[in-house]
């Protein structure tokens, strides 16, 4: 589904990604872990097409398409979804109205007709249960005045509505208490299928207790320095990131 080859990116003059290689197949869950500043969120942003970042090398193939050639909305319509670490507030626009615009534009792209109001509402009610989100929240301005947990649940709710092929969860666990974390993880798990894939970007192992990854990659200084199964996450939890940093930095000085 997704093939990242030697991806390099920078913001202004600062190089952040220095050659990422990653392959994600349908049905898989990949966790990207790493210390602060290692480039995890940059990778998520570059995949989604945020234009603050300049891609200076490498390629991204998404289902046979050159992802880097696509505008952010085209990527979204092709099935790339980013759950934001910091969901953006849009005053005066309700989540419902926002999603209706999004869902219909995505459907149009996929050759499906627009949903009428009744079908849209029906769809919404179904998906709301996934993340136990209250309808009153959806009638309020998008993310405005939402608690941290509400914002993250709203992200997963949007994901459920948009039915992406590739979901990228950027630090979705940050700012969540354990109950909210379980709800969010439960939602993500229910959306999982053999046809879609998930990339979970996180600093802590905690989320991975609930969203169990098939692969874990450790990102450090803009490179994937270690990959393994889910047990790697537990090892990191136990030992911290220092042992990886040390071994990488030692290699670099050789």
């Amino acid at each position, binding site marked *: 589904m997704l093939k990242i080859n030697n991806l390099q990116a920078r913001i202004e003059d600062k190089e952040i990604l220095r050659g990422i290689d990653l392959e994600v197949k349908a049905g898989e869950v990949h966790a990207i872990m790493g210390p602060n500043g290692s480039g995890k969120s940059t990778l998520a942003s570059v995949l989604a097409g*945020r234009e603050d970042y300049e891609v200076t090398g490498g390629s991204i193939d998404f289902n046979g398409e050159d992802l880097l050639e696509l505008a952010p*909305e085209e990527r979204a319509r092709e099935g790339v979804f980013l759950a934001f670490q910091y969901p953006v507030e849009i005053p005066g626009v309700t989540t419902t109205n*926002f999603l209706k615009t999004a869902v219909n*534009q995505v459907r149009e792209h996929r050759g499906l007709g627009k949903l009428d109001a009744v079908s849209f509402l029906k769809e919404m009610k179904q998906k709301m249960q996934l993340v136990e989100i209250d309808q009153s929240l959806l009638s309020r301005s998008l993310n405005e005045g939402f608690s941290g947990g509400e914002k993250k649940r709203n992200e997963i709710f949007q994901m459920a509505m948009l039915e992406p092929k590739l979901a990228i969860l950027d630090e979705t666990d940050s700012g969540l208490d354990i109950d909210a974390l379980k709800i969010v993880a439960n939602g993500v798990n229910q959306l999982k299928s053999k046809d879609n894939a998930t990339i979970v970007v996180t600093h802590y192992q905690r989320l991975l207790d609930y969203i169990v990854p098939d692969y874990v990659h450790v990102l450090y200084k803009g490179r994937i320095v270690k990959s393994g199964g889910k047990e790697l996450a537990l090892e990191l939890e136990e030992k911290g990131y220092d042992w990886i940093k040390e071994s990488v930095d030692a290699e670099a000085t050789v």
Partner: protein
Amino acid sequence: MSSDDQILEEFTSKEYEHGWSVDLEADEAPLGLNEGIIRFISSKKNEPDWLLEWRLSAFRTWQQMAEPDWANVNYPKIDLQAIKYYSAPKKTKKLDSLDEVDPELLETFKKLGISLEEQKRLTGVAVDAVIDSVSVATTFKDKLGELGIIFCSFSEAVTEHPELIQKYLGSVVPVKDNYFAALNSAVFSDGSFCYIPKGVRCPMELSTYFRINAANTGQFERTLIVAEEGSYVSYLEGCTAPMRDENQLHAAVVEILAEADAEVKYSTVQNWYPGDKNGVGGIYNFVTKRGLCNGDRSKISWTQVETGSAVTWKYPSCILKGNDSQGEFYSVAVTNNYQQADTGTKMIHIGKNTKSRIVSKGISAGKSQNSYRGQVHVMKRAENARNFSQCDSLLMGNLCGAHTFPYIDIENKSAQVEHEATTSKIGEDQIFYCTQRGIDEESAVALIVNGYAKEVLNQLPMEFAVEAQKLLALTLEGSVG
């Protein structure tokens, strides 16, 4: 240039869509302005002597006045001698049905999406269509007549209800109020008159569409709304104009009078031709709008969505004379390309326990300049006056300007006046959040802007709110879905 700016540049540089012209054989005055022209206008309209005298005295007053220059707008001096002050479609006989209306005119309305057929089918909207200064169609009149409501063209009111016109004309906006009001008083062509008798609640939204049609015709509309004791009316006015190379002057006057316990809601969507993207052409819109809350507990509410005109100079105001009277002003003003808008309101608190509320949302894009100018004046005997003002500015790109000029004059210590102001920029983050969900940039900007203006748009009657949303999108993005 950052990507954000590119997006905005791209979507703020589209051409005006409603650009076309209709040839209605015009019956015109020669160019220029003098007493002879005023006599020409008055006689064309078969006006009584008192009105001709009123016009002439306004003209003499105007001759003594100078064009104001305090507004934050720049435009070349208008040559008032190069303007035609009267132009009327030839067909002047009264019409009983739409069949009698010029088909070309009906076509024009269709292009605007406001065909009379549609309007007629829409329940509750009576339309008094003004094309080039003369009303050619009026509907729902009979129904209104049963309630004693008068809703007709100004000229008709002069003939049919001279006593009311004579009593109220100039009572809220005196002839000498300002340069453009005096000019309008001298040469006004037509407009609307609305009278709601005591205790009557007007059962439908009253609506008028204004449209400039012949080249070089200054538009000098005159609207007078009188709400007697305990009455209620919601009045809508909207317009869109065809493309022009030369600047056109529009200097309207709107007067509203509300007696005790009366309420008048006045909503307008203004979409005069703003000029092309280089700032060539476009309407100069110098309008005087004022409401007088004459009676106790009366209420006047202005809601405006300003998207058009090259230069806008407009301050719908309320004089809160009656005790416990209320004034409201809700405004969205959008400027793009080289448009300039200096708009706001005046709330003059005279009576006790008077309240006013101001919500102004400015949106500047392109190289435009958008100013809010407001005055809250609490007079000496206005015990316990309250005002709340909220003035927000939204900037798109970094070549435009937003300015706020709030004036507050308090002469009574019991007054409570609050003023809040914010300035923000449409964020790249907001746009990216939308595009990441599959929404194209154009729709994203429309969504964000409409969200920003929601508090004002919510004040508009439903069908108007939809039109206004489309206009905002159109002004800023060019295309309407």
